[in-house]
């Protein structure tokens, strides 16, 4: 293949210098002049030689001699001493090196120009230098109104002093920064999380760091809360939390008499057991409910349609999917726990929700039966009412007996007497209020039924989302099948959560997964 190219030659007279900025315009013709262009790209060609005047002893005029390299030319110098063979001027050509330098300078100049234009124009500057979208909490109309109240700007200047400045102000601000440009020892200082000047801007609205517990006031807001990360302020990372919560000294300082703040590094490792277990919390609800019986009991009838009673029948997700809707008698209990007290009159049901209403209802039974007779178009209403009342008396005795039985009985099986088509050993339609409720007798008026207390959340500071846990069965976390006591709190222990929420379990286990870090009292406002 080498024969395809002319052999390289080395001509000392025409030595190519790639480092030079300019090459002779005749070089492309293979005939560059000896002089070549000067450093500024100007052609230096004059003539093939510079004749020299030689004067012999005794001569006055002398003789011009050709100094052309190689052989002297035939014609020799002109009478005035100039060369007779002038070289035509060329237009020197810049080398690639020069073009590259020009491109570099152009890019530098363009960079400066673009930056000066964008930074010099206040309306463009903020958008250009902003390192990301501000969170919705610190932008928008609500923040604008708040900022106006506190006489703050709504742009970068709301938080940054340099935000109101042009390029000069930014440089001045940078020079006055703490830590300064080259204070490398401070960059390595782990205690540099202390509040800085910008916290002053935060405290215009969040007075004295009131979004966090008071003992955290010595930490800069920006240490945990990174702004410019989008509409939602970025959640504090575990490293942020552990910076204080993993520090024995800091936690000892934060502890008060009787309240030791634990040192925590990782949920699965040293996170303390949940308080409802360590402090042996009990459910204060007076409602009597036996989870084990309802889920496993042989006497529990199937639901209409034949399905077996399960957790999901009573515990249904709310609209957000995070928590369960409160259990309600109408939706979840009535299907099995009928309020029908007269076996042969299903149209009459006891009212639910108020003991007074029940008493009033029972004491107006003749009227209730009369109304029912009218609804059913009974030809002889009085006879119908009398028959019903007699049947009730036969089964329950007097009106007082009926009332006492309705409120205080817990018998789940009916009386032995034959009532209509039902024999005595059948399941009671309505055992009595006290089967589920705490009922207290009262000398005057109706008995008192203690209103059930059903806390919506046990761990109010923790976040939880049932919908995200839909792929595991309820029983894996809630040990309901072994709970016979209403007072049992059927939440899982920490170890149960850590089965999945740990490096070994592979599910996210960051602090912010469960915890909200804001001061609950302030956040609730």
């Amino acid at each position, binding site marked *: 293949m080498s024969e395809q190219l002319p052999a390289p030659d080395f001509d000392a007279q025409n030595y190519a210098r790639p480092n030079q900025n300019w090459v002779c315009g005749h070089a492309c013709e293979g005939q560059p002049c000896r002089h070549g262009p000067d450093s500024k790209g100007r052609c230096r060609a004059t003539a093939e030689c510079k004749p020299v005047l030689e004067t012999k002893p005794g001569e006055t005029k002398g003789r011009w001699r050709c100094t052309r390299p190689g052989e002297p030319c035939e014609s020799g110098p002109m009478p005035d001493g100039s060369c007779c063979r002038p070289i035509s001027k060329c237009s020197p050509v810049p080398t690639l090196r020069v073009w590259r330098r020009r491109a570099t300078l152009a890019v530098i100049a363009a960079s400066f120009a673009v930056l000066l234009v964008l930074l010099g124009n206040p309306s463009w500057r903020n958008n250009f230098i902003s390192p990301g979208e501000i969170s919705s909490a610190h932008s928008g109309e609500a923040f604008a109104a708040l900022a106006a109240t506190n006489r703050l700007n709504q742009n970068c200047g709301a938080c940054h002093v340099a935000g109101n400045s042009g390029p000069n102000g930014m440089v001045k*601000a940078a020079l*006055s920064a703490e830590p300064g440009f080259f204070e*490398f020892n401070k960059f390595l200082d782990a205690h540099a999380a202390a509040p800085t000047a910008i916290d002053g801007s935060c405290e215009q609205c969040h007075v004295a760091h009131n979004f966090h517990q008071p003992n955290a006031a010595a930490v800069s807001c920006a240490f945990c809360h990174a702004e410019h990360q989008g509409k939602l302020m970025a959640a504090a990372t575990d490293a942020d939390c552990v910076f204080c919560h993993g520090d024995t000294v800091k936690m000892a300082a934060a502890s008060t008499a009787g309240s030791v703040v634990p040192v925590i590094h990782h949920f699965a490792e040293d996170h303390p057991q949940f308080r409802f277990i360590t402090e042996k919390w009990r459910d204060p609800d007076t409602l009597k409910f036996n989870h084990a019986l309802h889920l496993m009991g042989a006497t529990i009838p199937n639901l209409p349609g034949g399905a077996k009673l399960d957790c999901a029948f009573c515990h249904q997700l709310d609209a957000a999917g995070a928590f369960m809707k409160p259990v309600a008698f109408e939706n979840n209990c009535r299907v099995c726990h009928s309020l029908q007290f007269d076996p042969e009159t299903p149209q009459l049901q006891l009212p639910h929700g108020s003991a007074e209403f029940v008493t009033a209802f029972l004491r107006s039974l003749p009227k209730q039966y009369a109304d029912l007779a009218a609804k059913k178009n009974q030809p002889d209403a009085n006879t119908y009412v009398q028959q019903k009342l007699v049947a009730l008396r036969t089964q329950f005795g007097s009106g007082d007996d009926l009332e006492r039985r309705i409120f205080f009985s817990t018998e789940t099986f009916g009386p032995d007497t034959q009532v209509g088509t039902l024999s005595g050993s059948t399941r009671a339609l309505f055992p009595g209020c006290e089967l589920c409720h705490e009922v207290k007798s009262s000398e005057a008026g109706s008995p008192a039924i203690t209103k059930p207390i059903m806390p919506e959340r046990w761990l109010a500071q923790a976040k939880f989302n049932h919908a995200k846990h839909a792929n595991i069965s309820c029983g894996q976390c809630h040990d309901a099948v072994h709970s016979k006591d209403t007072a049992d709190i059927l939440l899982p222990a920490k170890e149960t959560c850590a089965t999945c929420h740990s490096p070994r379990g592979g599910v996210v286990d960051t602090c912010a997964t469960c915890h909200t870090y804001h001061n609950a009292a302030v956040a609730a406002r």
Partner: protein
Amino acid sequence: MKRFRRQFFLGMLALIAATMAALWLHKRFCALPDYAFLTGWILFAVMLVLTFFNARKKLPFLALGKAETWLQIHIYLGFFTVVLFLIHLNFRAPHGWFEITLAWLFALVSASGVVGLFFSRTLPRRLATRGGEAIFEKIPALRHALKTGAENLALGKEAKSPVIAEFYTRQLAPFFEGPKNFWLHTFESRRPVSALLAELDDLRRFTNEAERATLDKLAALVRQKDGLDYHRALQLTLKLWLFVHIPLTYGLLVFTVLHIVLVFGFSGGVQ
């Protein structure tokens, strides 16, 4: 080759070790409040060292070590800079016009460096395989000499063939006029020269013995010109990537300096 492999092995070993160390240090110290300042300064210092390689080439008289050593350092430090850059970003995407522009500049400079490394490792081998040598700066003169030679053969005083003269004017003159087929040479295609030589071959049917001898000489010149164009295309490619890498490097430095001013000017500690 053995030396190159040793250099490559040592370079990769150093790069992997440095990367592992940097990632370990990142995990260890990323919770520091001013960690980004620290990684930023380290990144900037490394970028300056990389940029100084260009200056080093212009200062051959200073005893600053061999340019070859500097090149090796430049390559492996360049790859390590990408790791440092990701650490500085905390492995998150940048936000905002300025930071995205800065990140793109960094990406372009890094990518052009990788492309340049690829060129400098593959194109010289291709040139050697093709054969012949041509100093880039002398290629115009060589092309001019080939053009003059071909013109003399086809149109000179000795030439007496109207067929060859017509063919030269129509087909060969534009070919010898200047550099041709840059992209096709870059992608190793020899289609144009093959077509031209085939046409020259076709012409033999209409020529006598003397003219065929001229055609043979012209074919040799066509091959030489094609080889010259090939050398020019590949040598130019070896130089052109620097037109992206070096200017953007200085643009990146301008933006980086402003970035430093902004992060300090807008940091929490500004009074």
